[in-house]
């Protein structure tokens, strides 16, 4: 075996420095022949005879050389090397064409691989747990929100509007989870978990934020995840009074403990509650939601210890069936379908909601249980990204299509140009398979070079994409290295492109009739040329069509971004710094918390360079929202039905409007005079004022903030001012009806808050000073979401910007490629018709007629592509309507603009060959063939 390997290795070596070895062998042979001749002479032969006998004895110099040559190397490999060398020489002979082809393919393949890797990570990969296919995630839908009858009083977690309307969520009450778990015959295990926001974690005197997941005792066993170190959280940990235990993620272990096994047994203070670290999760396990990364898992039974504010005041969190906050997953028993499980779980759910008594009168209004496959984790990320990813995938697929069409076109023209070469090679005895192999080698090599460049581009492009797609508030941490699937995908696409567009021209080029091909100077026969140009023209029409679709997409996305950026947001984003702090997690509450906020505000305001500062429960954009039912005394909001009587609530500090730059329209803003002991006031925005009071002055009216009218004087608020509409939570939504309440006058103000700081100069420069203030107040309280508001808004528009940029880039690229294609086809057509044009000119045709004749051809091709493209874009634009903003998916301006741009550039690309045609010298042209 080793010998054989050795032989092949040495033959492999022999395949390379062939020339040298050939020479060396020649010398050896020569010296041996000379020795033989010498011996023959000594034996008394005549010189002539001595040489003749020696050669005779040898059996032929050529045969001997040949026998050795074949044995020295690997003939098949040598042919391949020869082909590759020849291909390289051919490609380097036309560097422009090679560059265009490689670049087209690299961009097409690179973009496809990048997007594919992302899609693979987000949508195709399954959870790294045992038998993920049998996992089911429970959710529910209800036709009405809020769910009638106080069944769901508070909900924390995911909530969305399904296609059928109403509301859907994955959150359940803890009592429902318990009900699912008892005597379950459909699932082998049912486990629950909840994801609070980041929590304050103190490990060896270092405070930071970590994402903590609250899990039931059977979470790890149910998922089938075994810690790499220590043990998992078990049912024994998940009991009231059990010593708090925590499992940390592999990444967290690396970051905080440097992979030191002594981490087991260490104490981590989560919101000041001491937890003992008992295990480290395996490195590939990030939690059940792809895209988010859990740092620490703790038993759900410790929720009330670390999050005492959770749940409705006065109700036990675990016994409250109207507080919905736990996500539930189950593992189906073998042979049980999801539908069977759903039916039996739905009955259990109904029981917890109606308290086991007779069914409520509006049973169909009750939340209905749904099941979804949980094999790929929670749907969140997929739902959020799948559409944009599909759109991107379509965009890049179109680019690849154009690139391939271009490559095909260029290879076609090239093969036409090489017909004579092929004819010569066939005439001197090259076999057709050998020539096809040669041509295929060339195109596959082109494709592979393009693919390799594309892969490099993809590696770079994907990290850029990943960074861009992660909006600031949600770092997307999918495990998306360029993986084998993506590599395979790239390789397949590039090889297929090479073979497809190499083979057709190769077959055609070698099937030619030798005699006419050799005779004709410009190669090929007439009929074959017609075929080629038909294919070429078809490709050009396809390119124009794809380019137009891309350009229209680009136009729509760019205008969406513009609309989003230029809309009136109701506050001044410039020179505004925001940061969050959570003293509630550091043990502050009640008076102490209020005092902390007051002191912090004073200290920040005292900083040089700060114009004003305030605080609010929610930041301005992208930090969540609170929605409450409102009632006006004497002034019932006219459309009480639905959620019209709801208002978005922000709890703010003094000088909030001055700090954010929201202008006051009537009355006054929230000020320092609004304290716990003064009259309770609210400021409402224009939208709410108009909705409730029409044109009447709302100042002095009273408002209460719950389902029911205020019972006591103390719970009612007096409207003190009206401010302009400002965006709240999301940029895409119109400003909701909003009320602002002083943080000193509401029980809702919480343990975490955002500070707004208006600065005189660059707000980012203020960050160190602000951090120092916070550190001096309490060094165990880290800041979160520290950023300037303009940066935050930019971050929240990342996806839109990504779309606008990528689609513009691809659009321009497509335009360029399509025009290169058009130019190539027209140039070729003009060159082919030089003779004809010469005759026309000689017979008296005007030069401008010739110009028009050629121009007409390219314009017709473009018009054909445009017509198909417009129709397709009209049909396809509806698919993207959900990600557009402020314009119709069939926006006529965008459509017309894209078509005009394409037409103009195409006309230019067509004009160049047309001008060349019109300048043909008739005499020279007639002699041309």
């Amino acid at each position, binding site marked *: 075996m080793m*010998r054989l390997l*050795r*032989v092949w290795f*040495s*033959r492999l070596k022999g395949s390379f420095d062939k020339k040298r070895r050939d020479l060396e*062998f020649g*010398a*050896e*042979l020569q*010296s*041996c*022949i*000379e*020795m*033989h001749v*010498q*011996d023959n002479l000594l034996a008394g032969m005549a010189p002539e005879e001595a040489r003749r006998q020696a050669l005779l*004895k*040898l*059996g*032929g110099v050529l*045969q*001997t050389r040949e*026998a*050795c040559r074949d*044995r*020295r190397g690997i003939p098949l490999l040598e042919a391949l090397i020869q082909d590759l060398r020849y291909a390289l020489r051919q490609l380097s002979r036309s560097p422009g064409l090679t560059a265009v082809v490689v670049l087209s393919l690299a961009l097409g393949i690179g973009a496809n691989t990048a997007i594919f890797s992302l899609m693979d990570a987000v949508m195709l990969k399954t959870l790294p747990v045992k038998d993920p296919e049998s996992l089911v995630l429970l959710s529910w839908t209800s036709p009405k929100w809020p769910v009638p009858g106080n069944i769901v009083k508070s909900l924390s977690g995911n909530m969305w509007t399904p296609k059928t309307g109403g509301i859907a969520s994955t959150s359940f009450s803890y009592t429902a989870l318990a009900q699912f778990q008892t005597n379950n015959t459909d699932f082998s295990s049912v486990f629950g978990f909840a994801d609070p926001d980041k929590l304050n974690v103190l490990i060896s005197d270092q405070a930071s934020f970590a994402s903590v997941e609250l899990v039931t005792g059977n979470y790890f066993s149910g998922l089938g995840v075994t810690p790499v170190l220590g043990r998992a959280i078990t049912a024994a940990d998940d009991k009231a009074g059990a010593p708090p235990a925590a499992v940390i993620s592999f990444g967290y272990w690396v970051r905080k403990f440097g992979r030191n096994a002594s981490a087991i047994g260490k104490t981590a203070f989560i919101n000041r509650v001491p937890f003992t670290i008992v295990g480290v999760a395996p490195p590939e396990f990030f939690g059940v939601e792809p895209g988010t990364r859990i740092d620490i898992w703790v038993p759900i039974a410790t929720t009330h210890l670390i999050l005492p504010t959770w749940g409705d005041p006065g109700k036990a969190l675990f016994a409250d069936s109207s507080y919905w906050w736990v996500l539930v997953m189950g593992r189906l028993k073998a042979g049980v379908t999801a539908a069977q499980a759903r039916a039996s779980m739905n009955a259990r759910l109904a029981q917890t909601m109606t308290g086991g008594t007779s069914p409520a009168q509006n049973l169909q209004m009750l939340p209905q249980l749904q099941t979804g496959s949980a094999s790929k984790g929670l749907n969140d990320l997929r739902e959020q990204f799948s559409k944009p990813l599909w759109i991107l995938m379509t965009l890049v697929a179109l680019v690849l299509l154009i690139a391939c069409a271009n490559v095909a076109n260029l290879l076609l023209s090239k093969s036409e140009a090489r017909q004579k070469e092929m004819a010569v090679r066939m005439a001197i005895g090259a076999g057709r398979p050998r020539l096809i192999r040669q041509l295929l080698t060339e195109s596959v090599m082109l494709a592979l070079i393009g693919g390799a460049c594309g892969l490099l581009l993809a590696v770079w492009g994907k990290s850029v994409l990943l960074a861009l797609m992660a909006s600031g508030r949600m770092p997307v941490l999918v495990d998306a290295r360029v993986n084998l699937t993506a590599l395979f995908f790239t390789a397949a696409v590039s090889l297929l492109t090479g073979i497809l567009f190499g083979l057709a021209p190769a077959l055609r080029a070698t099937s030619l009739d030798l005699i006419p091909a050799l005779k004709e100077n410009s190669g090929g026969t007439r009929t074959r040329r017609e075929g080629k140009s038909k294919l070429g023209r078809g490709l050009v029409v396809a390119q124009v069509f794809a380019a137009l679709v891309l350009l229209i997409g680009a136009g729509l996305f760019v205008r969406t971004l513009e609309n989003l950026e230029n809309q009136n947001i109701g506050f001044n984003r410039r020179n505004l710094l925001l940061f969050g702090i959570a003293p509630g997690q550091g043990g502050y509450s009640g008076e102490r918390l209020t005092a902390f906020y007051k002191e912090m505000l004073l200290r920040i305001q005292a900083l040089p360079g700060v114009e004003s500062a305030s605080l609010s429960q929610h930041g301005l954009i992208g930090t969540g929202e609170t929605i409450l039912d409102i009632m006006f005394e004497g002034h019932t909001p006219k459309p009480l039905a639905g959620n019209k009587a709801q208002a978005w609530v922000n709890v703010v500090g003094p000088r909030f409007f001055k700090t954010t730059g929201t202008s006051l329209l009537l009355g006054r803003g929230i000020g320092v005079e609004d304290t716990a002991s003064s009259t309770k006031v609210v400021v409402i925005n224009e939208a709410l004022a108009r909705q409730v009071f029409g044109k009447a002055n709302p100042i002095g009216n009273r408002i209460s903030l719950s389902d029911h009218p205020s019972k006591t004087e103390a719970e009612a608020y007096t409207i003190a001012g009206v401010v302009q509409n400002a965006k709240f939570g999301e940029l895409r939504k119109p400003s909701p009806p909003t009320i602002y309440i002083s943080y000193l006058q509401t029980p809702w103000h919480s343990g975490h808050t955002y500070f707004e700081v208006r600065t005189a100069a660059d707000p980012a420069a203020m960050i160190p000073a602000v951090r120092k203030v916070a550190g001096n107040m309490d060094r165990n309280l880290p800041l979160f979401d520290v950023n300037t508001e303009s940066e935050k808004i930019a971050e929240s528009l990342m996806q839109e910007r990504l779309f606008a940029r990528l689609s513009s880039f691809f659009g321009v690229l497509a335009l360029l490629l399509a025009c290169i294609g058009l130019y190539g086809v027209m140039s070729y057509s003009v060159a082919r018709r030089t003779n004809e044009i010469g005759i026309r000119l000689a017979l008296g045709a005007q030069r401008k007629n010739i110009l028009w004749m050629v121009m007409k051809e390219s314009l017709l091709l473009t018009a054909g592509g445009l017509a198909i493209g417009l129709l397709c874009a009209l049909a396809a634009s509806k698919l993207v309507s959900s990600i557009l903003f402020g314009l119709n998916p069939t926006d006529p301006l965008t459509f017309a603009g894209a078509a005009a741009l394409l037409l103009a550039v195409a006309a230019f690309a067509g004009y160049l060959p047309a001008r060349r045609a019109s300048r043909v010298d008739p005499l020279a042209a007639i002699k041309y063939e």
Partner: protein
Amino acid sequence: MTERMDVWQGTVAFMALKTLETLGPLHAYGIARRIEQTSGNLLALNYGTIYPALLKLEQEGYVASEWGVSENNRKAKFYALTRAGRKRLEKEASDWEQATSILARFLAPAERA
């Protein structure tokens, strides 16, 4: 003139190895000549066939080659047995001996009969 036998396929390599063992480093022409002489001129050897055989032996690592100067002051490529070649020769020699003795047994009674 006695009838000369053609060389059996594959035996040239063995003969070349044996020659190198007996005579030490030698060039291709010398090896071919020696094989012919050893056979008592009974073998019809095309000197050309020695070259591919030597090339194969070299690729297999049984011989090593080096340029040197021949006895009559001519530059020539010399082949020498390697350690692996020596082992190979031993094995092949014993194989041949066994094969010929087996054949001999078949031939002996036939002659008697």
